């Protein structure tokens, strides 16, 4: 009886051992497989080819002869991108898989990789995820444009140059459609073309007022406005009248009976005042000091008895004023270029100022020797001068 009981216990023990042995490979604590997920680009664009890499790895618990069998699956927002089976053992503890994925929608998306391993005791590391933001296709690097993108770009450029040329040649009457509203209109036409292009080809970026506004650089505009405020305050305070008065005083300035500047020196200074006092727009000083330019121009013309000199003085002054908005630190055009090229403020100013000083002289010379313009009011004086010159030459020839 006792023997039978002992036999039963032994058999039960043997059976439980055998049972445990059969179950062990499936429910053993030695299987722990982890998964890792990565992509070759962090900010993919819609329609591009993205390589997703999944690594399935045993955490070092598999003993010799043991195996971990399973299947890895990658999903994008619930949609299956790919599936692959794997078998890991002590000699081959990891497997790497590459899946190719083409994002079909813009916006944020989540890639999830999940490893389903039979008998995995630790499910917390069976899943890995990757948050990505899919952008609009760019492909705008030179030479890499799609056909539709090229057409849109060419059309945009063509419209811009057409408006510039048509306005210059007078095809677009400026009294009806000035250049500024024409350009604003052109902007909306380009937006429409890009919208149509964007519906045909994803490589063309569709944009609206928001994107346009984001492209506007506020700094030069705010500098320009504050520059105009400064000019307005100077004008209101009578500073430009003081400048004209100062120039007249300068002409009369003498040291020991000798004129320091004289009329010629004062005219040279007057012509270059706009560049010395560079304003955000040449019109400020051109309008404010024009009476002084006319006054000194007439003085010079009468002094040298050459009526054409008034045009020489006035236009030398004007070209100087026109160019002066380039080097102006208070919202000049130069500041846009300096900002764009990340150069220190004012680094392009000196070179421009020297160029303008020479350009003023060249304009005066061209007016003196090439263009020769006598104002109608002084035409009679010029006719008398020419007559006198002829008579003098004749007399010299006779003598």
């Amino acid at each position: 009886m006792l023997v039978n009981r002992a036999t039963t216990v032994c058999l039960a023990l043997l059976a439980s051992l055998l049972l445990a042995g059969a179950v062990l490979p499936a429910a053993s604590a030695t299987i722990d497989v982890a998964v890792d997920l990565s992509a070759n680009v962090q900010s993919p664009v819609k329609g591009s080819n993205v390589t997703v890499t999944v690594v399935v790895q045993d955490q070092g618990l598999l003993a010799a002869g043991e195996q971990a069998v399973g299947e890895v699956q990658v999903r994008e927002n619930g949609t299956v991108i790919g599936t692959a089976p794997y078998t890991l053992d002590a000699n081959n503890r990891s497997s790497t898989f590459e899946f190719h994925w083409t994002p079909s929608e813009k916006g944020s998306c989540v890639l999830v990789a999940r490893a389903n391993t039979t008998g995995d005791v630790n499910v917390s590391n069976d899943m890995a995820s990757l948050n990505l933001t899919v952008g609009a296709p760019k492909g705008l690097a030179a030479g890499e444009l799609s056909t539709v993108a090229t057409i849109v770009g060419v059309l945009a450029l063509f419209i811009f140059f057409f408006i510039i040329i048509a306005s210059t040649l007078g095809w677009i009457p400026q009294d009806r459609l000035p250049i500024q509203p024409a350009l604003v209109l052109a902007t909306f036409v380009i937006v429409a073309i890009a919208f149509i292009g964007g519906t045909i080809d994803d490589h063309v970026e569709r944009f609206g007022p928001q994107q346009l506004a984001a492209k506007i650089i506020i700094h030069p505009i705010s500098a320009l406005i504050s520059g105009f405020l400064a000019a307005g305050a100077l004008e209101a305070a009578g500073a430009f009248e003081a400048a004209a008065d100062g120039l007249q005083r300068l002409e009369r300035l003498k040291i020991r009976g000798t004129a320091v500047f004289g009329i010629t020196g004062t005219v040279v200074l007057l012509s270059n005042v706009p560049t010395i006092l560079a304003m955000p727009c040449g019109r400020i000083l051109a309008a404010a000091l024009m009476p002084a330019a006319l006054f000194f121009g007439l003085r010079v013309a009468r002094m040298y008895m050459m009526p054409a000199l008034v045009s020489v003085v006035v236009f030398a002054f004007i070209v100087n004023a026109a160019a002066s908005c380039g080097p102006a630190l208070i919202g000049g055009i130069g500041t846009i270029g300096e900002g764009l090229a990340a150069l220190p403020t004012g680094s392009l100013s000196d070179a421009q100022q020297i160029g303008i000083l020479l350009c003023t002289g060249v304009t005066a010379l061209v007016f003196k020797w090439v263009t020769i313009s006598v104002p109608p009011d002084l035409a009679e004086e010029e006719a008398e001068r020419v007559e006198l010159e002829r008579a003098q030459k004749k007399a010299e020839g006779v003598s």
Partner: protein
Amino acid sequence: MAKKVNILVRVIRFFKGTFRDDAAGRLKRGYVTLILFMVVLTLVIMLRAYIHVPIQTILIILVILIMIIGKAKIQDLMAGLIMHPIMAMTAGFLIAGALGLAGGYDILLKGLSWLANLNVAGFAILGWVGVSVILANIPTIMPMPCGRIIGAALLLGVFLFGTALADSYGLGINSAARSIMISSLVAAFIMSAAASCGPSSLGGIGGIGEGNLGLPIGRSTLAQSAGILIATGIATVIIAIVVQPISG
């Protein structure tokens, strides 16, 4: 000593005169504000490395000071504002944004690079230098009533072409010569754009002079354009040889 006292008396009289409300008082206030403006601008230029306040802020403070000294009202200030260049710049920036987003600059760059590489029987027609010269002078060839229109619209294209130009000469991204080359082209283009409102027949500044002298419209255009072409070249040479600015 007597001379010094005399100078002091004259200075006191001058400043006393600024409080008068007649024409002489206004002229004196004009002198004070003009000198103040020039001194502040000179200081801003000389001490720019130490001034960490934007120029806009300095100018607004200056405006308030000038208005107080010059006894000017807000109405006087607003009457002196010229809206034309502000509108021109805004229009220029709008079209610049549209061109950039529509790929216009890529096409411009592609077209200019093609032009620079255009060869006939093995000889470059324009080459990179020739295309740069034309590009820098475009604002004077097509003068607008305000240089800011073409300046704002095409400056990014000029900058991109400058980088392509530097690449064509094999200048690396960290090369100082590359920065100088781009700066020279940008400066030349700005010079040409800034001056181009002078000879413009679409309401350029030259029109003021022509109107005042009773000359036909466009009479001053060629002389001004000749001067600007020279100035553009001079500005380029000075930037390249003397100033040599390096990007920050």
